[in-house]
């Protein structure tokens, strides 16, 4: 059984200008010890999914579908059960560690808070456990007495990871965990996340726009465009042999150094990712698609089988399969 299972998730924000669909029918599963990467650009709905999983969306957002965490539907939970599941069932490493920590509270107190609130131990033991967690993420326990401003960006992100581990969750959701960090520090943080995930058998949902990071850390990848998954499969093949033209364009933004195909020849897509309030008809990618044809503006593609464990939402995929047989 999968640890986290999202079924037909739809999220619509109510705005003054009317309802805005941010997530338009997304399904995925994450098994124990598996890392799923969710990639996409700004406005594609990936952060909305994070918030929907733990029901952190603002009032006025309409959610439908199912989010099963260890078999239990999060969307139908009552307040008390929901509070218990947050942080013990699934926890989040938020983006922008610089702003996610309370600047006027010591690191130790912030780490202990979640432990005490979930009544996992009394305050004194909670601080001891917080010290252990800091060691786990590669910081000396004396840092418990530090305030956030005394730490560097990478150290703060380590604290955020320790915080996500406080209540021993089964799933960790990492939302752009390395985006604000320097390349060298990014490598350190990715290494740490991988180590912890491996050692503790955690399931992980990893969200970022940086496809090259996802390919490095994830078992499977799901590529999002305009509120939908347009391609999914094992990460290596998705990145190296994309089945969807959007994945191909996204992969080209992260060129392999030394590959003569990319030397002095930047490639990108014309146009911009669509705003959620004006999603194009048919295949929502068709206005930017280099291989679009007459059917694309009118037909909404399903996720078609595109090889072993691979699916892609492009009308060309079933056509190619037909030609092959």
């Amino acid at each position: 059984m999968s640890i986290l299972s999202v079924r037909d998730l739809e999220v619509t924000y109510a705005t003054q200008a009317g309802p805005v669909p941010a997530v338009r029918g997304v399904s995925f599963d994450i098994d124990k010890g598996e890392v799923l990467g969710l990639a996409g650009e700004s406005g594609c709905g990936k952060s909305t999914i994070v918030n929907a999983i733990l029901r952190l969306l603002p009032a006025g957002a309409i959610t439908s579908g199912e989010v099963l965490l260890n078999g239990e539907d999060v969307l139908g939970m009552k307040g008390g059960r929901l509070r218990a599941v947050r942080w013990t069932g699934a926890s989040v490493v938020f983006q922008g560690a610089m702003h996610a920590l309370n600047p006027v509270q010591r690191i130790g107190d912030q780490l202990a808070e979640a432990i005490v609130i979930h009544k996992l131990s009394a305050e004194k033991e909670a601080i001891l456990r917080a010290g252990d967690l800091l060691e786990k993420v590669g910081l000396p326990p004396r840092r418990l007495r530090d305030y956030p401003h005394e730490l560097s960006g990478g150290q703060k992100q380590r604290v955020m990871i320790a915080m996500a581990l406080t209540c021993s969750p089964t799933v960790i959701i990492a939302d752009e965990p390395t985006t604000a960090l320097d390349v060298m520090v990014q490598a350190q943080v990715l290494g740490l996340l991988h180590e912890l995930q491996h050692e503790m058998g955690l399931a992980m949902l990893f969200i970022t726009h940086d496809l090259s990071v996802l390919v490095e850390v994830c078992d499977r990848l799901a590529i999002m465009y305009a509120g939908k998954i347009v391609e999914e499969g094992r990460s290596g093949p998705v990145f190296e042999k994309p089945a969807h033209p959007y994945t191909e364009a996204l992969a080209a933004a992260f060129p392999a150094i030394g590959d003569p195909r990319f030397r002095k020849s930047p490639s990108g897509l014309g146009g911009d990712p669509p705003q959620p309030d004006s999603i194009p008809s048919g295949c929502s990618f068709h206005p930017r698609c280099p291989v679009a044809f007459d059917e694309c503006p009118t037909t909404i593609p399903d996720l078609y089988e595109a090889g072993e464990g691979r699916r892609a939402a492009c009308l060309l995929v079933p056509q190619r399969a037909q030609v092959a047989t």
Partner: protein
Amino acid sequence: MSEAARPEPAAPTDDPVLEVRGLHVSFAGRVGLGAGVAGKKASVSRAVDGVDLTLGRGEVLALAGESGCGKTTLARTIMGLEAPKQGEIRFMGEPLGTSTKILREYRRRVQIVFQDPTAALNPRQTIYESVAEGLRIHGVTSQDGMSEEQLVARALARSGLRPPERFYLVYPHELSGGQRQRVVIAGALVLEPEIIVADEPVSSLDASVRGEILKLLLGLRDDFGIAMLVVTHDLGLAWTIADRVAVMYLGRIVEIGPAEDVLTKPLHPYTKALLEVVPEAGGLGRPYLSGEPPDPTRIPEGCRFHPRCPEVASGAAASAGVEPKCLGEDLGLIELQPGHFAACHLAAAAKRSDKVPAG
């Protein structure tokens, strides 16, 4: 400074538009009142600590390094936005003066494109006003027989905003990120600069949009011979657009050369480490430098990279007999391959031992 330190010679072209010689820029730190009374001195941050650099006509040079390495300070100093403590900047062969008139002319011919177009554009100015502002500041009312409006239209069209009239009365919030960056580029282009300094020109843009902006920048070089200094932390970007790559560490260029050589056959251990951490499939578990980005208020003795250098840590420097030099002797760039320079005792020793059997 050791005898090995010598200035880097001219770029592959004989016709440099910009030369930087022995540039030093530092910022004074602050001390608290109590510490000041107690006689404690403010620590000085040596952000740029001896940089020699040339930029050829129509050349694209990428300046790479971690945050805090001084790459943005170097770019700002070249723009005349910071005053160097020491050293010289020469533009078209002439040393850059300090008078307002000379600086104003210089700033017309050297334009900057900032990282975040949303912050760079005035939200209450129309696109036309934003692009025309540079012309007005420099008192350009007509050029090449073209009126202000024609010049603005040409710059917008050259930046890929067509038809230009459609954008005249539009405000920045009505445009996408990629279009805003095109407006910023048009604002630079309208003054017909010789050099564009681009500070992380695509890092705030969506991944699928970046390629088009880079294509635009490369096109400007090809069509108008504009030289570009592209400041970036992204070596993949350097591979995509740069002719030469300079790698900065703690205020100094530690390696410079043709992009192919620096990125595929790096000589300096720091460049090697930077290339190791470029994410890629199956890259987990590769070596990376531990510790934090270094502190420019405390530049180590000897080779400034030695406390983090994997070659020193692994004993490779010791077995080559250069470790005492690494720890005690500061060095400048040494030409190790034609046009390819690195500031590394170990690489220099390897080159010397190569030469001995040859003659």
